[in-house]
């Protein structure tokens, strides 16, 4: 017997609302299965289970908000007989964890992907991707957008697909639920969450800051050549070169990859990079892209596209909210030239990249115009010293001069 509890999806989460159960009592579940959708201030998150067994009982109803740590469901392990558990419900509710864990204990053995046997055919992973506009319109029309055939980017269901769909049959009660489950994040709550996490970071983490300037012309030339030979859906953005160079630099300087836990640095063998994504309605979210150092450049671009799309439409998974071992914040185009990042606890470093700007640069003794980017590192002085940070930045800069082989 084991408990499935409301997970802490980041340092800033205190409670969550069970928006939808994707399993019923009696369902067989496996490690990595998505079994519930939880509404948080970061939007709807698909929550995975990291145990194996049979769902015995669901203890929290859809729509109910409970503190982190509350038991949501009971799970019977293989071979266990179902036991009566009803009286425990109230007790469990009265005992939320006094202080939510920052982050679950590191679980290096976590299954990265859902089990090959889906819980049931309508698990979110199997449904078509749906754009937020399409989802809203589908809810208005009373259509289950997940069942439509998508013609959009990556096969996602677009507004046009929803408009083209036949009307939903009358007397259906499902539609209101779709709206409830798939609504976006709450900007006010998200603001509070960011405020809590960032205040804690600045209160507890003695940051040190380093910066360097990188000539982007080799990277840009490489990207131009790579992209010229490809259709738009296979083209790369500079972001993937930043991710790749950071992951490879972390392999060389592992002192910045991991967590500050129990007054000590706990390095992570895996390199999962949180990518800060700003949301148009306001707010910020930094889901993890897993095993960045092991992905090919094309797979990395695919992973980035996927995580950005889901961050904006509310389909992130719980593991993506907690797994990042390092974060990158890239300001992108038309922004500032440099950024001094704030570390997301319990991580120990964040890499910041400003907008690429054309500026004078000295090459071979001559001043020439070059596209330049300011790379900055904010790191936790409890976990590392400036020497290590400098090593990381110079390694990152060197790797940016050596674009990947296509």
């Amino acid at each position, binding site marked *: 017997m084991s408990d499935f509890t409301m997970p802490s999806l980041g340092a800033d989460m205190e409670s969550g609302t069970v928006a939808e159960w994707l399993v019923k009592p009696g369902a067989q579940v496996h490690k990595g299965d998505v079994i519930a959708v939880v509404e948080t201030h970061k939007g709807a998150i698909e929550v995975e289970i990291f145990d194996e067994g049979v769902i015995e009982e669901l203890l929290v109803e859809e729509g109910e908000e409970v503190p982190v740590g509350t038991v949501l469901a009971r799970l019977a392990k293989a071979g266990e007989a179902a036991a009566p558990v009803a009286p425990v419900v109230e007790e469990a509710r009265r005992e939320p964890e006094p202080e939510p864990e920052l982050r679950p204990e590191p679980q290096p053995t976590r299954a990265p992907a859902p089990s090959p046997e889906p819980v049931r055919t309508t698990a979110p992973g199997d449904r078509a991707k749906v*754009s*937020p*506009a*399409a989802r*809203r319109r589908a809810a208005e029309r009373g259509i289950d957008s997940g069942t439509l055939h998508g013609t*959009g*980017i990556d096969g996602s269901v*677009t*507004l*046009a697909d929803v408009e083209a769909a036949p009307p939903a049959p009358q007397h259906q009660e499902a539609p209101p639920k779709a709206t409830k489950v798939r609504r976006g994040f709450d900007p006010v709550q998200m603001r509070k969450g960011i405020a809590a996490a960032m205040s804690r970071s600045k209160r507890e983490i003695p940051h040190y800051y380093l910066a360097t300037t990188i000539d982007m012309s080799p990277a840009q030339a490489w990207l*131009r050549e790579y*992209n*010229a030979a490809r*259709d*738009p*859906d296979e*083209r790369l*953005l*500079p*972001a993937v070169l930043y991710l790749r160079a950071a992951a490879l630099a972390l392999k060389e300087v592992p002192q910045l990859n991991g967590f500050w836990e129990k007054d000590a640095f706990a390095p992570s063998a895996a390199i999962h990079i949180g990518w800060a994504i*700003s949301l*148009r*309605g306001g707010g910020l979210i930094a889901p993890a892209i897993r095993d960045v150092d092991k992905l090919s450049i094309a797979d990395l671009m695919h992973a*980035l*596209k996927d995580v*950005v799309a889901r961050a904006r439409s509310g389909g992130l998974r719980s593991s993506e909210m907690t797994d990042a071992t390092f974060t990158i914040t890239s300001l*992108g*185009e*038309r922004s500032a030239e440099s950024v001094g990042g704030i570390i997301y606890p319990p991580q120990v470093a964040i890499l910041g990249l400003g907008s690429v700007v054309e500026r004078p640069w000295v090459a071979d003794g001559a001043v020439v115009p070059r596209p330049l980017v300011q790379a900055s590192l904010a790191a936790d002085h409890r976990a590392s010293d400036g020497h290590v940070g400098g090593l990381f930045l110079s390694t990152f800069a060197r790797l940016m001069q050596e674009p990947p082989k296509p």
Partner: protein
Amino acid sequence: MTSRAMNAEDICKLAIGILSDIAPETDPSTLGGDEDIREALDIDSMDFLNFVTALNKQTGIPIPEEDYPRLFTLGGVADYLSGK
């Protein structure tokens, strides 16, 4: 929709539909023909790549990267995709 015979109005409608999916919090139908789409709708490089990808998929017209600056306004998109 693979011919170059689409008129400017069809193309704008198509572009506005794609932008509504990419930036659902915005109202692209209010865009002026000369307005920079990226600034008006807060479109980042990933959004813009998705925009170009969708235009390419739905019209069949190839869009090399060096032509991106011609697609920064609705007017530019209409001219480009109608073959002007």
